[in-house]
């Protein structure tokens, strides 16, 4: 199994850390992983994206043009990466601020209103965990227990008190993700 994912959004949405948690979760179940961020001027306030690969084999190229899954968190990223999803692949997006919704018919599309949900939970910081939950509902490539383990590894110990809240957010994400349409995979 190899899953090639792009996560893209604004800087500050937790794009990079979400990718990191996913990579850690892969390690927890003995997979090969790679995490390749875009870096540079883009990092400073603009868009942020990260390519994450989880695989049972040695990972060849960590830098990709096409993806099995795109997790899209703003309009710019939608414009840039909707076309990069492999036919039969999946796109999952947060509807907040999206004015042009995805149009492709050859990929599965899911929507998760995580920003809205995070606001309801009165904790905007768990936004990315809600999205992660939604993704894992649709593609359970890593077990929830491994995600929690990965979360623990990637968070400094002084932040371990935040673990239950993050777990709650992931579980909320599992519940609120909605199917827009699905193609056979």
């Amino acid at each position, binding site marked *: 199994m190899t899953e090639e994912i792009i996560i893209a959004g604004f800087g500050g949405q937790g794009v990079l850390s979400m990718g*990191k948690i996913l*990579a*850690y979760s892969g*390690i927890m179940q003995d997979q*090969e*992983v*790679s*995490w*390749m*961020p875009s*870096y*540079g*001027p883009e990092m400073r306030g603009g868009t942020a994206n990260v390519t994450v690969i989880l695989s049972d084999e040695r*990972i*060849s*190229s*960590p*830098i*990709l*043009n096409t993806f099995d899954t795109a997790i899209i968190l703003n309009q710019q990223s939608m414009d840039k990466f909707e076309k990069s999803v492999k036919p039969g692949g999946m796109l999952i997006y947060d509807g907040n601020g999206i004015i042009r919704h995805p149009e492709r018919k050859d990929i599965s599309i899911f929507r998760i209103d995580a920003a809205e949900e995070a606001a309801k939970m009165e904790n905007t910081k768990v936004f990315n965990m809600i999205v992660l939950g939604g993704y894992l509902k649709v593609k359970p490539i890593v077990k929830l227990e491994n995600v929690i383990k990965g979360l623990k*590894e*990637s968070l400094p110990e002084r932040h371990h008190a935040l673990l239950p809240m993050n777990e709650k957010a992931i579980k909320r994400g599992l519940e609120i993700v909605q199917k827009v349409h699905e193609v056979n995979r």
Partner: protein
Amino acid sequence: MKELKLLKGNEAISEAAIRAGADAYFGYPITPQSEILEYLMAEKPHERTGMVVLQAESEVAAINMVYGGAACGRKILTSSSSPGISLKQEGLSYIAGSELPCLVVNVVRGGPGLGTIQPSQSDYFQATKGGGHGDYRLIVLAPSSVQEMADFVKLGFDLAFKYRNPAMILTDGAIGQMMEKVWLEEQQPRMTEFPEWATTGKKPGKERRIVTSLDLDSAMQEKFNRKLQEKYRKMEENEVRFEEIDCEDAEYLLVAYGTSARICQKSVKIAREKGIKVGLLRPITLFPFPKNKIKEMAGKVKGILSVEMSAGQMVEDIRISVEGKVKVDHFGRMGGIIHSSEEIVTALEQKIIGG
């Protein structure tokens, strides 16, 4: 026991340096490698092992601190990215000319000039042909994974001390910024015994140690140059390292190092799915260059494509090795753009197979 971590390539260099028992790091911030100094500072290596970590006032000062520390027989490293490495060339020439061991990491970005902060492989000439003034070479290691970033710190130090010559890890912003699984070696103790040539204070009754690259007597200077050249020939005999991927039945060969080699691994898969028998030769040491292996492969394949994130630098060494036996061409992107696995296959089809 080894320890498993998820680290950026840059961070892996730092952690591996502490664990290899490095005595000091001297550096100056520059993108895309500032995490090396940041990670070291955050880790408080002075508490972990007593390692000295100092942010110098410039790359020039940093490499000269490396010289001072290396001449004390210590394990010293520095790191920078292309423009900063250019500034270090004077110091590197002195270090090579004084036969001192040290480790230099170049996390390459696109140039020339201030260029870009995106990854590139355009410093190959500078790294493998000397870089500064005078006839000298660096031992050049090219990691293509975060694991190798960590592993080559120890290997680099070992080779540097074995040959009393500076070693360089030539990597790029992509591997520096990328996170992968990495198995880290156990902590090694720092050295307590130092080489006989090290300036540790003149022992009573013994000759004083003088570390210098100066000899005003031309005959002596030529003799010294011959000695250096012998050393480089020994490296060529003993230290060539490379990896072969799907080379056994290959009709065409890609040659690539570092990030390009990772991308080419996928190109090999894509090409083979199309029925083209392609192999990948990945030089791990860029100096000494695997010229004999390439010469051997030239007798087996129909054509060779060098894939580099540059205008074509390593391709010159490939051509020298091939001695005109088969067609050799270059494909690469520049300025911080990374070629895709697919466009490499297209280039192979157009430049080598169809060409």
